[in-house]
């Protein structure tokens, strides 16, 4: 049990760091994906907007869903949400806490993608090149072209090699303008996200710290309980199998040696395994136990153990003895006036 305790403590204290690590890796993956992606603006009037905005908005959505998929706790959240109430009430605050912490982590990679895309400028240049303000940027004299022609010429701004509207509006001027707008949007977006993150983080201790401590405790509890239940079931299955096989071989040896009176040994091993079975010794009972675990989880209330001596806990208040020797140090404030 010590080994399990160490492992669980490691996971518990490091679960946050583990999830933060996954977050960071996804953020890096998203920048890498962007730089490896070969952006090809179509340079056609209506396709530009669709392509540009698609590249800006679709990958973040995919990264957001991926953030949920890669998070182990999503199945735990779903389980806790859908289980029948049974003897244990459901606390919506705990569900909200679990969902919020998963959503916050899943948001990081999409935000990184959108910021990098805006700060780079290619997407916005591609999407909005047909909407540049001709009055500000255009050269004074331009031939009288129809609106459609002008749109077609402007749409080729991102593709320098085929741009033929230099007398209409200089390519560098338009590209610089669009880059400037894109970068301004990018920095404003990053600023907005940072301010929101800062507010969320700093307003919480001011308003709902007690509720937060509760939700965090019970969400960790649900996670640990699920892991421990799986471990206990695995141990049980092992013992079950051991005893089953032991009984099979004993049965075989009884059949083969019906006329010999060999002393039957009950090895210590089998006794120990049998104890670990916790009284559940057949398939029907095990199935009933598993079904009951899902349908009707036990209440969050531990009964005192049925000790033969009379001094068990009162069940209320502190246990009669200190768990550890009292320390002799005294801590007090001094103030030097």
């Amino acid at each position: 049990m010590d080994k399990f305790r160490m492992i669980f403590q490691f996971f518990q204290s490091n679960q946050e760091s583990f999830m933060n690590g996954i977050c960071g890796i996804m953020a890096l993956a998203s920048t890498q994906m962007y730089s490896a992606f070969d952006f090809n603006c179509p340079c056609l009037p209506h396709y530009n907007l669709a392509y540009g905005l698609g590249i800006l908005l679709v990958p973040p959505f995919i990264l957001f869903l991926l953030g949920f998929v890669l998070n182990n706790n999503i199945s735990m959240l779903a389980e806790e949400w859908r289980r029948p109430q049974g003897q244990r009430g459901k606390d919506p605050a705990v569900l909200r806490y679990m969902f919020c912490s998963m959503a916050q982590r899943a948001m990081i990679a999409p935000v990184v993608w959108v910021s990098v895309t805006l700060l780079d400028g290619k997407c916005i240049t591609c999407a909005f090149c047909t909407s540049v303000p001709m009055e500000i940027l255009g050269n004074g004299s331009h031939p009288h072209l129809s609106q459609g022609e002008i749109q077609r010429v402007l749409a080729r701004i991102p593709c320098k090699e085929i741009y033929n509207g230099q007398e209409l509006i200089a390519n560098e001027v338009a590209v610089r303008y669009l880059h400037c707008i894109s970068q301004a949007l990018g920095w404003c977006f990053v600023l907005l996200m940072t301010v929101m993150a800062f507010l969320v983080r700093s307003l919480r201790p001011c308003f709902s710290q007690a509720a937060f401590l509760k939700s965090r405790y019970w969400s960790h509890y649900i996670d640990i309980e699920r892991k421990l239940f799986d471990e206990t079931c695995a141990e049980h299955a092992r013992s079950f199998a051991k005893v089953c096989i032991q009984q099979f071989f004993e049965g075989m040896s009884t059949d083969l040696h019906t006329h010999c009176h060999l002393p039957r040994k009950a090895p210590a091993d089998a006794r120990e395994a049998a104890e670990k079975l916790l009284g559940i010794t057949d398939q029907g009972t095990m199935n009933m136990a598993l079904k009951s675990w899902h349908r009707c989880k036990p209440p969050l209330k531990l009964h005192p153990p049925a000790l033969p001596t009379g001094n068990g806990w009162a069940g209320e208040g502190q246990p009669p003895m200190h768990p550890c020797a009292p320390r002799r140090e005294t801590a007090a404030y001094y103030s030097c006036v």
Partner: protein
Amino acid sequence: MDRFRMIFQYFQSSSESVMNGICGLLALASVKMYTSFDFSCPCLPQYNMAYGLGIMFVPPVILFLCGLILNRQSLVMLEEWRRPQGRRKKDLAVIRYMCSSIMQRAMVAPVVWIVVTLLDGKCLICAFSSSMDPENFVGFANVSPVQVQQLLAKVPCKDDELMKNNTSRKAVSRYLRCWSQALGWSILLILIIAAFLARWLRPFFNQAILLQARHWSNYIDIEQKIFEETCCEHSRLFAHKCVLHFFESMKQEIKLHSFSLPREGEGAEREGDLLRGITDQNKVNKLLKTWYCEKPPLDVS
């Protein structure tokens, strides 16, 4: 218990180092962000100033807020500030100490960004090229006012057709870069002198109060970590007991008496001690609420 003590000593000694590490990483990240950022001045009369000053001041605000968010101590300080008084008095000197140390660390990355920006010069050239006096530069002296604004605005764009070989453009650019670098170096010098004086003169003022504030701010930090660790330990034991009791109650339902009760004895008693009598949901909730609303006094005699 020894293992826990070692771990907590590590945390105590290196909680400052962890924060200094984060500070350094943010400063490096700020330099890297600047070098990888593709600065493209719009070279238009009204847009230059907004773009240049925006690039100089908006990222430092973002970096400052990031420095506050990533610092664990800022949460600890806020909790200590907002908690109800209960049985433990609040010491404002401790909160002030924590606040100032958090702010100092959070200021490093923004200052690095501003200094790097000024030493590089592109931002100031972009922002203030339109505000130059054209009389001082030969190429712009005899041009009409409307056109001179347009020309000056294009100074940051070296590759523009009008500006490609214009010597006056180079003159304006050099002039602004010189001012920018002078400003950058001056700011750096002033900040370093201020930091030096603050560190050197500190022992002359209020050293005793400073030592107390530092001790109690470390204490609050460690107490928080230990509380979280204890909660984790408690929830693990709670879950263990809960699962075992569940299996026992199953056994009672099926009425098989071949096997004796498992795990009676020392193991169960030791774990019972560690549960400290807190064995149901309401008690846990009450414990957590009391921890927040009424922290125990600092007296373990």
